[in-house]
Each structure stands twice: as structure tokens, then as C-alpha cells.
């Protein structure tokens, strides 16, 4: 494999991983932008989507119908969450809402656990990945043969499409405008006659839809689902959203891609070391192979959070500016 193909392939990998993270991050940012709520239950909403999908597909429901069920079910969950847990806390300090999102997540997880046991399903279930998402596709490009798994392909396409649609929605529609207004100043928006409850409801609907898509993609890739599967994704989504500028939708998108590329890079560098083994000096190779991966990939989460903290201190608005925008 030559230099070009290797990096082109890893670039493609980064793009698809980034798309998945972007989807998750934007879902999170939607709700944060308006409510200033860091919804840690977002990962569990993804989990619910995955479970609804799993049960529908296992029951031989045709794919389009199953998708519909997933979307409906997830939106319903999101709305229920909002009505029961978050609306009563509208006036509460931000931290109280953050903590209660943990509690909501616990309820979702344990509820799923209880349900699974009651209907006699194993705790860790296989996710019946639909055929359309199985296998890989080969591209013959300028650089050479590039491989992309179908799941990554779908992420790569569906991700940006959904996100672009979202941006259009926010910029061009009245509801989108209302959302931006509410995000900027909830009370002023109310005074201007905007039905903020409806706006918030829609934010949750969109957030849940994005979570549903992200959840199904994630479950397809992992191949199996379990009640606490939402934990890792929500952490990643959160990091991505903060990197890009918390509350900003375009920011969350960018953050998702940045995180995706970062992750791929950390594992790509050692591979690069393999490639240049013959042509580069042994010190460089060792640096790329031993020092970098050992430090970077093992300490990756730590580095990300240190970067996060620095970012919060220096530029709380993230890459795209202040929190109060968008």
C-alpha cells in the first residue's frame, strides 16, 4: 500500500466516523442551545431507538416500517422526557437539570433492563442489521482502491444530508427562526409572542430524530445492544459538541468531524510508521510506533478532556464563538 492510498483511506475513515459523531453531537446541541440543558440521557435515547429497531426487525417487520417505528418511538421518548422531567425544571439552576438528565438516563436503562427480562430476552442482544447496511463497497479512485463499509457509507451520505437539511430548517423556516430566538433569550422570545413550549418541544423532536438515526447506525456497527450502550456515545457526542462550540449547531457538526479525525489519526500514525519503515530513520519509526501510540492512544481520553478544559477556560464558546449564539 502506498502513501496516497493509506492516507486517503484513513481520511475516508475519519469522515465516516466524524459523520456519526456529528449526528450525535448535533442532537445534543439542539437541546442545549435552547434549554441550556446538557442532556446526558441522549445516549440512552439512542439506546431506546436501537432496541425498538431490534425488536421490530426481529419481528420481521419490513425495513421502512421498522424505521418509522423507530423514529416514532424515539420521538415519543424524547417528548415524554421533556414533559415529565425537564419542563418542571425550567427555572432550576443549570446543574440541577444536568444531574436530572443522569437520573432520566438511569430510568431509561433500568426500564429497558426490566423489560428485557420480563420478555425473556438476554441482556446483550444481537442487533439484526438490515442487509442494506451489511458488507463493504469498493471505490476505484485516483489514489487506488478505497474500501468503505456500507454503514460508514450511509453515515457519510446521510450524515451531511441531514445536517444540511437541519441548517436550512434553522435558517429558512419560521420555526427555525423561533428556535434561534428562544436559544438566544428565552424570556425575550416569550415576550415577542413565541410559544416557547412548542419550540422546545420541536427541539426535542429533532434531537430525538437525530438520536434515532445515530442510534441505529451505532447499533448496526456494534452488532449488539445492551441497556448501557449509550454511555460511550454520549460522552463522545458531548466532547464533540464542546469542541465545536456548545449550543452551536454548525459547531457541533464541526466538532464531530474534528473528533472523528482525531481518533482515526491517533491510530493511523503508527500504521504510517509501518509504511515508512523502510525509507525513514529508525528513530522516527520508533517515535511513530512506540512513543506516539502508547502515549496518545492509551491516554487519548485524558488528552481530549485536558483539551476540553483548556478550551473551556480560554474559549468557552468553542471553535465557533460564544455560547450565546445560535
Amino acid at each position, binding site marked *: 500500500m502506498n502513501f496516497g492510498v493509506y492516507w486517503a483511506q484513513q481520511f475516508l475513515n475519519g469522515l465516516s466516523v466524524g459523520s456519526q459523531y456529528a449526528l450525535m453531537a448535533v442532537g445534543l446541541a439542539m437541546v442545549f442551545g435552547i434549554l441550556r440543558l446538557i442532556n446526558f440521557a441522549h445516549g440512552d435515547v439512542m439506546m431506546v431507538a436501537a432496541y425498538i429497531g431490534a425488536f421490530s426487525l426481529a419481528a420481521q417487520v419490513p425495513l421502512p416500517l421498522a424505521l418509522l417505528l423507530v423514529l416514532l418511538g424515539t420521538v415519543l421518548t424524547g417528548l415524554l422526557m421533556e414533559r415529565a422531567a425537564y419542563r418542571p425544571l425550567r427555572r432550576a439552576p443549570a446543574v440541577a437539570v444536568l444531574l436530572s438528565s443522569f437520573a432520566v438516563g438511569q430510568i431509561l436503562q433500568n426500564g429497558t433492563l426490566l423489560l428485557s427480562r420480563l420478555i425473556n430476552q438476554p441482556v446483550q442482544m444481537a442487533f439484526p442489521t438490515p442487509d442494506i447496511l451489511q458488507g463493504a463497497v469498493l471505490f476505484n479512485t485516483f489514489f487506488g482502491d478505497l474500501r468503505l463499509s456500507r454503514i460508514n457509507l450511509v453515515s457519510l451520505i446521510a450524515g451531511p444530508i441531514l445536517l444540511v437539511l437541519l441548517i436550512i430548517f434553522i435558517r429558512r423556516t419560521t420555526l427555525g427562526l423561533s428556535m434561534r430566538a428562544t436559544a438566544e433569550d428565552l424570556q425575550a422570545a416569550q415576550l415577542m409572542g413565541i410559544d416557547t413550549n412548542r419550540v422546545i418541544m420541536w427541539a426535542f423532536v429533532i434531537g430525538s430524530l437525530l438520536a434515532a438515526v445515530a442510534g441505529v447506525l451505532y447499533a448496526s456497527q456494534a*452488532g449488539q445492544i445492551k441497556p448501557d450502550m449509550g*454511555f460511550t456515545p454520549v460522552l463522545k457526542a458531548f466532547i464533540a459538541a464542546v469542541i465545536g462550540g456548545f449550543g452551536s449547531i454548525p459547531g457541533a457538526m464541526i466538532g464531530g468531524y474534528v473528533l472523528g479525525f482525531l481518533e482515526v489519526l491517533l*491510530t493511523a500514525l503508527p*500504521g504510517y510508521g509501518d509504511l515508512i519503515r523502510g525509507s525513514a530513520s529508525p528513530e522516527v519509526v520508533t517515535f511513530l510506533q512506540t512513543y506516539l501510540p502508547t502515549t496518545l492512544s492509551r491516554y487519548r481520553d485524558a488528552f481530549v478532556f485536558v483539551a476540553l478544559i483548556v478550551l473551556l477556560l480560554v474559549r468557552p464558546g468553542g471553535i465557533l464563538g460564544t455560547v450565546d449564539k445560535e
Partner: protein
Amino acid sequence: MNTVAVKRLFAAAFVLGILLSLPVLSLAQEGDPIVIGGGFGLTGGMASLDVPASNGALLAVQEINAAGGVLGRPLEIVVLDSQTEPDTTAQIARQMIEENQIVASVGFTDSDSALAFGPIMQEAGLPFITAGATSPKLPDQIGDMMFMAPFGDNTQAAVAAEYAFENFGPNGYLLTNLGSEYTRLLADFFKIRFEELGGTLVLEDTFELATSDFTPQITRLSALGTQPDFYFISSLPEDIGPFARQMRDAGFDGPIVSGDGADTPLLIEVGQEAANDVYFTTHALMDGENGTEAVQAFVAAYTEEYGHAPENAFAALGYDAVYLLADAIERAGSTDAVAIQTALNETENFAAVTGSITFTGGSRVPQKAVTIIQVVDQQLTLAGEFVPESVPAAEPAEEPAATEAAA
């Protein structure tokens, strides 16, 4: 909410809480059933292994009682959930000892839980047999009351290394899940034995816990000049399915080898065609048609009781642990802990579903044969049962270097 009402409500809840947590008085007659403890992580991260193990244990108790019990008395098992939390694990250990007056216990398929549970049993002087924790150091770490029903990770890794070396070739690939004690130990032992045999690990790589996307690692593999003869992944049940799929999608059709972490229905459910040509070491092949007689009988009984085939070999290990204990109690002729311990130490060629168990030379890790399973046409088939020629020492000297591609 009204202050007084709230206070009263919580006072009531508090009192109720205390009352509910008081031990229920036992109505059983003095000394009639022999009570053993069964600690399992029925909820939490280990559930996919512990639930089958507890099912196996319960089945064993049922069968034993149908056949007349132990020492003429009925056998009773108290199964409690550890929630895969260390303090709850310790709590249930104490609960079983004090409230249920157990004479011995079985349980757990992971080392963390065994290490939280075992010392309490050890201190109470009660024998404890783990159903599935495979770290070979456990009996030393916990004490002389602790016995293992399964073989140690050093044994299964050695067999995997020898099998791979002899059947696939001297050039290997090692991928390790960094997030678990089991996977790191297994990888260490594998590397030691494989290199001892003269094999070379062409590439070593790692991944974080709960990684479902192996594209970066696979890309790196693609960049290699000459491909290795096989791919060894030291993994947890959730990893093997996606890994196999992604490897096959990327065009890597060579043999994939793993440890008993791959012994999960998820391998075939998730991997489907990709699971073909996956080999893994485990305790027994749960095949109702092609397994040994003991396995066939077990599979039939389990299916009848639970409505589906045993999920993995841990079901059989839970079953074996109980039978092993019952057998020891019979040989000891009493429920005295030291007598049971002596009987256990003297166990020789105990015919378990997962193989023959012998505790010799003072080692409480059984010398058992290791089963290697090969997936053919999305079916689990027996590749063979092996005893390793040489087993690495229980405590490896150091962690493997994260990378060291061959020259």
C-alpha cells in the same frame, strides 16, 4: 410540598426501608437442607456470562435433588445478584454467610467479582468455587479455600498459541482490548507462549473498551507488506462479532483466533458469514448433537428447563461448579468446611461437562483440556481438545509493548 407531610412521608419510607431489609426469618427446619451460596452478576456488565452460569447452577441443584440430594439431604442454593458492583458483591457474600448459613459457595465468571467475593468466603473459612473466572492467580490471591472450575488463562492462551503456530503458521497478529483484565492477561500469555515456540508477532495493536469500529486497526493491517498467517484478538463477547464482520468486509479471510471471550451466541448472531473460520478456545462445545455424551445430556436438560440451548460454555461451568461441590461434600461425608476443602483438594478426574477436573500438587487451578471450536458454515464445530505442552507462569513479567512490528 408541605414540610410536615414530606417529613412524615420520608420517615415512613425510612422505616419501611429498614423493615424490608431485616433478614426474613427462615422457616426451614434446623439442619435439613444443605445450603450453598450462588453469587452472580445477574445485572450489570457481566450478565451475559453470569446469567447462563447461574442457570446452569440452578439446573444442577434441581438434578441433584431429583437424584436424592447430597448425603441424603436436599441441596439448596441461594442465588443473589451482585449487580457487578464490588461493594454489593461483598454484601451478598456476608448476607449468604450470616442469613442463609451456607456451607460453601459457587459463582462469578470474572476476576474482579471473584476478588471481591472470595476473601470474605476465605475469612469465613468456607470453600468457594468460581464458575468462570479464569485468572490463574486467583487461588493464590484469595487463599486456600478458593478453587477454580475452569482452566486458567495461561492454559488456554498456551493452547491457542500452539494450535495457531502448528496449524496456521509462525507469523501472527495480536489485537488486544485494553479495557479488561481478562483480555490483557490472555494477550500477555499468548504472546509469551507464541514467541517461545519461535513464532513472530508481525503486528501488535490495541483498542479501547467498547470500540465497535475497527477500521483504523484494519487499515493499519492492510498497510502491512506481508500478511500474517492468522489474527489473534484478545476480546470480550461484544467485540468478536463486529471485528469478524469488518475483517471479512475488508477482505481478510484468514483464520481469526480468540479466547473464551468469543464463546458467545453473539459471534454467529452478529458475525453471520463472517464468523466462518473463527477459532476460539473454550471450556466445552455446547453441541447437543456432536458434543461428548456429557455435553449432549447437559444441552438437552438445559434446553428443556429454559426453553433454549445453553448460551455459552459458562452455563456448563456453573453446572459443573455445583456438581463438583456436591461431589466433594459427598466424599467428605459432612458439611464441615475443612473436610470439604480436603475432599476438593483430592479431586481426581472428576467428570465434568467441561472436561475432567483434577486438583493435584496443591494447585487449585484444574489441569483441564482446552476445547478449540471452529466455526464452519455458521455452526460451531469441534476442532479438537488439547492439553498444552507448556504453560506460561501465572504472573507474566510485564505488559506487552503496544507495537513492535517485525523487521
